[in-house]
């Protein structure tokens, strides 16, 4: 594939001062589950060519899902570059790549029927726990993907990977009562690594526990976020750590480099090289080397996530976080990790008089981290005892404020997509029952 990208580059490099060519191809199978039934197994194959042309420091980008139409794509990119305004964009020149082994020959050779088998595994794991559990609006996917990037500054890199993932949504239904739904998702590069049964069983038990809810009433105390609920908070942190947002004045973490912005118990890593994740690769979307980066260490902001342009503008090391083949590069996390604490989650709960357990958080923080939302699968916990499940609980406050008030990070961690996240006990949010 790299020679194909280089051939196209040769044909179009005269269209601008600098030119970048990306080719990507993927094929895969997926299946859906609705109301405990497997539906619509699908086969899909896609390809694409993306071309970025830079003329006098301004960039234009175009993309097509037919590699054969690269000439038209390059022309459109050139026209956009001419209309666009100069901002001093350049392309990276490559670097030292680390080998990433996230390719599973078993997935590459998989028959299409494998997705149906995976969907059946989801359903039997749930029904083993209870027939009152309904798996709904869920998907399983397997795929093989390959990309190549060549640019006029000497980048020439390609990578192949495989992936298997599920996003399982479930709720419980018993005697006219319906729980709110909850979900688990996991994404891996190898079939054998999947923790599907454990995750689905745990999910089934969680939704069964939240069937007989009552009112919370007056509550003061910390809240315990599940890894999935914590992912909402981590999403805000990742957005704020994006150098794109720092440069655009949209990050509450602007100017916080080297400062303690979070509790000491928080260490956040983004690792673009992890072999167990299909999102990993030796190079990012611009062909710059990916790496493992500690973003926050013991609460101190160590680096923002960069792409070539932001690193250049901010005079920083490029962390290799450029993403998105079908658009201009944007900064995005790859595989995030919050390093585990020492105490188990039950110990953390025992350490406080009362806590509100939050299994899922229905909320969308704004870019400043202001958040208000609804707690789903909530439980009142007193001195480590699970007292009763609660409903109609609202929380509000600020994500960044709350993450300065972390009481503990659990030893246990769970995969949420490709991220590895603990349970987090924190205070500083207002809770209304």
């Amino acid at each position, binding site marked *: 594939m790299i020679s194909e990208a280089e051939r196209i580059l040769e044909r179009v490099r005269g269209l601008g001062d600098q030119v970048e060519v990306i080719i990507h191809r993927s094929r895969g199978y997926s299946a859906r589950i*609705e*109301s405990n039934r*497997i*539906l*619509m*197994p*699908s*086969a*899909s*194959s*896609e*390809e694409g060519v993306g071309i970025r042309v830079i003329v006098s420091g*301004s*960039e*234009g*980008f*175009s*993309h*097509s*899902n*037919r590699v054969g*139409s690269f000439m038209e*794509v390059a022309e*459109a*990119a050139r026209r*956009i570059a001419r*209309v*666009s*305004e100069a*901002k001093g964009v350049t392309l990276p020149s490559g670097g030292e790549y680390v080998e990433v082994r996230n390719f599973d020959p078993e997935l590459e050779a998989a028959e*299409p*029927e494998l*997705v*149906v088998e995976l969907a059946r595994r989801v359903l039997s794991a749930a029904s083993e726990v209870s027939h009152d559990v*309904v798996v*709904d*609006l869920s998907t399983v996917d397997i795929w093989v993907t390959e990309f190549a990037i060549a640019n006029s500054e000497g980048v020439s890199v390609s990578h192949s990977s495989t992936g298997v993932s599920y996003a399982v949504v479930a709720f419980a*239904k018993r005697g006219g009562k*319906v729980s*709110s*739904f909850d979900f688990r998702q996991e994404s891996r590069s190898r079939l054998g690594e999947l923790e599907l049964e454990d995750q689905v069983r745990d999910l089934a038990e969680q939704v069964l526990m939240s069937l007989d809810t009552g009112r919370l009433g007056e509550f003061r105390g910390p809240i315990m976020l599940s890894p999935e609920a914590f992912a909402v908070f981590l999403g805000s942190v990742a957005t704020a750590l994006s150098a794109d947002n720092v440069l*655009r*004045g*949209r990050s509450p973490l602007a100017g916080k480099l080297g400062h303690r912005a979070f509790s000491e118990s928080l260490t956040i890593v983004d690792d673009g090289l992890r072999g167990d994740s299909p999102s990993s690769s030796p190079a990012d979307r611009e062909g710059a080397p990916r790496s493992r980066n500690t973003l926050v260490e013991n609460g101190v902001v160590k680096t923002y996530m960069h792409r070539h342009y932001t690193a250049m503008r901010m005079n920083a090391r490029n962390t290799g976080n450029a993403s998105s083949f*079908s*658009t*201009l590069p944007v900064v995005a996390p790859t595989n995030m990790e919050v390093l585990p604490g020492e105490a188990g989650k039950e110990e953390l709960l025992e350490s406080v008089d009362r806590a509100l357990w939050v299994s899922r958080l*229905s*909320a*969308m923080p*704004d870019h*400043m981290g202001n958040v*208000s*939302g*609804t707690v*789903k699968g909530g439980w009142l916990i007193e001195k480590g005892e699970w007292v009763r499940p609660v409903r*109609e609980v*609202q929380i*509000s406050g600020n994500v960044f404020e709350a993450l300065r008030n972390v009481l503990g990070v659990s030893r246990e961690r769970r995969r949420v997509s490709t991220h590895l996240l603990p349970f987090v006990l924190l205070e500083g949010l*207002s809770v209304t029952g």
Partner: protein
Amino acid sequence: MEEVFERIAGALDADYVEFRYHRRISTSIRYANGEFEDFSRREKAGVGVRVLRSGSWGFSNTNDTSPEAVKEAAEKAYRMAGALGEGGARLAEARFFRGEYVTPGFEGLLEEPLEEKARFVLDLYKVDRPGSVKSVTVIYRELLDERHVWNTDGANARSREARPEYIVFATAMEGGETYVRWDGNGVLGGRGDLLSLGDPVELSRTVVSEAGALVTAPRPRGGKYRLILSPSIVGLLSHEAIGHTVEADLVESGSAVSGKLGQRVASPIINLVDSGLEMPGSPPGTIIFDDEGVIASRTYVIREGVLRSYLTDRERAARLGIEPTGNARAWDHSVPPIVRMRNTYIEPGDWTLEELIEDTEEGYLLEGGGGGQADANAEFFFSIQKVKRIEKGEIAATLRGTAITGQAFEVLSSADAATREWSMSMNTGHCGKIQPAKVAGGGPYLRVVAQLAGVSG
């Protein structure tokens, strides 16, 4: 292409075969902080094939539209359907679209020079701004779609559809407070149709000046109040909190209205419609025919407070024993159609807004729906951009936004008055259920009782 489709389908021993050719040219521009953060053009084309075999579905897609590649995709879909063995799916009878529907303005947008698109964005960006407004972002998106839906039950529907839209965001900061105000518009049609909805530069001026004015405004007190919801919030409520619960796939998984057809679910003044047909303002959820080739309906979901219909595709229509409503939609060729909304709105009443405010002793007028979430049990939580306090029948103060929460059917049961003033005003909306879809929502000003949340009393 229909000869190719017919030949390939004929060679498969299937109950039903459906081909969807879809080509999309999209242009995205985002301008902020004095530079183009995005300016790109994408093209995506291909064929999606769905096969029903012994009552089980299979799907496949290809970006290669040659007869050989389409045949291979159809065979893959046939094999995928076989992986499930015998199934129970069958399809309800439906009225299919045959012929071509072309949005006026499609060619104009296709041929419009990029310079003009860039100028449109820059004009919106360059409006005067108060000192407290720290950043303005203008987004312009344009989707140009060609669809061809053919199936073995008789659909042969072609279209060329244009959907331009723009959004202006203004962020104001003052005294430690940050406030974001946004608005925009979109249409099924060309540049002229978009402009006919209102002057975009004027809209941009309003957004930017209100951001500056409201950043230091006080917030309302939380509590249960009589609230007058503006059309954009009525649209959000109709789509997010009611509409999703009546989508047949969610009905089947036990949404709040499962088994409630024919029952009273809202106040008698509520008529809630989901329509894919042409209507005033040409909102972008207009589709004419869906991605099963079924002629889109204008469906009364709620009529005079009574639940009248679900929104459905053909398979679920057969299972639920109802008429197909033309709500099967696919974002592009690469994904199969699923049950989606189109333009979802509440019909107007006979009050004027002035009368409605005069008649309200104490309460709030809520304007500008923000984002929101709702569950299948119709509990919702929406952010609101702007709030006006009503005291003794008059607007007493303009306040910053907050949020509204409740159970949508309870809120609609409390509705006691709707205005003649009516608009579709969620025209930049994308619904994100599994795949994106262009939808719209709207309605009159509607007076209800609900909880204003997120601020202490």
